[in-house]
């Protein structure tokens, strides 16, 4: 059993996501940076389906009431076991009574803590990914506790084969369903220079600070995907992420590549990104 002594800023249990319920209006949720989450699971010998903790900017403090193997991947975060610093991208065996402190993220936005056996919170609609009110909470709270699954008997921990370059800032995009509604002026503003992440960014979406001018015609509500870039009538850009509503009434002008969604999940307020058109 693992106990939450400090929940951190926004820490949630996430797995690969909640599929087959988008047609009922349930967002897919799941880890935002799949590469880093997968690397953490690999290091502790978990399958890629295992649920992990997604840490945002400031991490949790966890008391381990049983031994377990842990690893943390993604953004650089200061980690301590019983006050002793440990490194990201490495697996460590913790013993019963150990205290794991995940402190501030210094570069990037999200880190993934994998624990051997996987986080064993309740599966709702086929997934452990937190999404309120489908799950009873949206994030870890002080005093929460959770169990972990039985450790895999093989015990071999694979090596990471690829890491996300958190400092990269090129976001690759394909045309979205309403791409043809963009003017040359829009295209110039979208691709000729870097754009800024606004303070409004979270698991539902990332708003950009720049205003590129809106499109006049309104649109009926239509299905959307994580990675869809919407252009509001006011001229603002919203990049939908994993907890975004499954439908939306703003033009879907561009669609991020999957790997660019992972990279965007590592961006935060005032970071600048450059869109690259993949056609």
């Amino acid at each position: 059993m693992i106990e939450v002594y400090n929940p951190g800023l926004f820490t949630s249990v996430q797995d690969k996501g909640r599929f087959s319920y988008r047609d009922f209006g349930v967002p897919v949720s799941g880890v935002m940076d799949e590469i880093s989450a997968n690397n953490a699971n690999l290091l502790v010998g978990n399958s890629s389906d295992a649920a992990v903790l997604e840490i945002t900017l400031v991490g949790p403090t966890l008391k381990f009431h049983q031994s377990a193997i842990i690893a943390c991947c993604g953004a650089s975060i200061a980690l301590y076991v019983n006050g002793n610093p440990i490194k990201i991208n490495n697996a460590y065996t913790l013993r019963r009574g150990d205290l794991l402190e995940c402190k501030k993220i210094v570069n990037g936005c999200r880190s993934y803590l994998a624990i051997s056996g996987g986080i064993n919170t309740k599966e709702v609609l086929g997934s452990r990914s937190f999404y309120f009110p489908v799950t009873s909470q949206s994030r870890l709270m002080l005093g929460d506790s959770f169990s972990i699954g039985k450790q895999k008997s093989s015990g071999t921990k694979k090596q990471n084969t690829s890491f996300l370059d958190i400092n990269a800032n090129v976001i690759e995009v394909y045309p979205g369903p309403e791409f043809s509604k963009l003017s040359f002026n829009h295209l110039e503003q979208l691709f000729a220079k870097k754009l800024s992440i606004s303070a409004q960014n979270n698991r539902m979406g990332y708003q950009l600070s720049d205003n590129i001018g809106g499109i006049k015609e309104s649109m009926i509500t239509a299905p959307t995907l994580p990675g869809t870039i919407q252009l509001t009538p006011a001229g603002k850009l919203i990049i939908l992420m994993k907890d975004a509503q499954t439908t939306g009434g703003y033009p879907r002008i561009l669609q991020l590549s999957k790997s660019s969604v992972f990279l965007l999940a590592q961006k935060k307020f005032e970071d600048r990104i450059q869109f690259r058109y993949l056609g």
Partner: protein
Amino acid sequence: MKHIKRYGETALLLEWEAEIDPKILQNMLDFKKILLESLEGEFEIVSLYWSILLIWDKPNLNINDLKDDIHALYDNSLVNKKSKRVVTTWELPVYYGKEVAWDMESIVSASGLDSKQIIEKHCGATYTVYGIGFLPGFLYLGGLHKKIHKDRLAMPRAKVPKGAVGIAGEQTGIYPQGSPGGWNIIGNCPIPLFDVNRYPPSFVKAGDRIYFKQVRKETFLEWKAMVETPDFNPNILKLI
């Protein structure tokens, strides 16, 4: 089906004629059923108004082959026109009392009708479910009487209660959970539209029809108590 558009790396968007029309919806939903039954492998389908979004996870799927397969399936399906889809009609109780009808007065002002007439028009229509989205279990309903259309509030409320029945533009709908919301609230429906402990979690599906039935406060409270019991089965709301 008018065309198929690429939508990123692992999705295709199938679009029908851009009109809110039960016949177009029927054609689309019939094909949705065929797609679900015919496509091999793991696909997810989301449908709303005149769009079907087809989503998959496998990175190496040949998209051009898939597009061709879908076109062939569709052309084939037009030959066999009999719809095998089950359409259910539901009657949902709604309480329109003053304490829950927060925006009734503004619709009275805007429409020139009194609240009794507004309720009659709201209950007098057959609504078609064009899809589910916005919130888990939120039904997009078409068929609201023109006289009681009303634009959304200029500023949304921070909290609209679960079950709130509202009007926004030409749409009417029910909030399946408490949420911020900009709709004009005219009543409350005691039936839970989304329940994670049921399969499927939403008992209403796209293509179904809905009637609203005005109920007294006592009946509304009885319903509220009944839906909490483990015996509650939404099938008692089926009309046909």
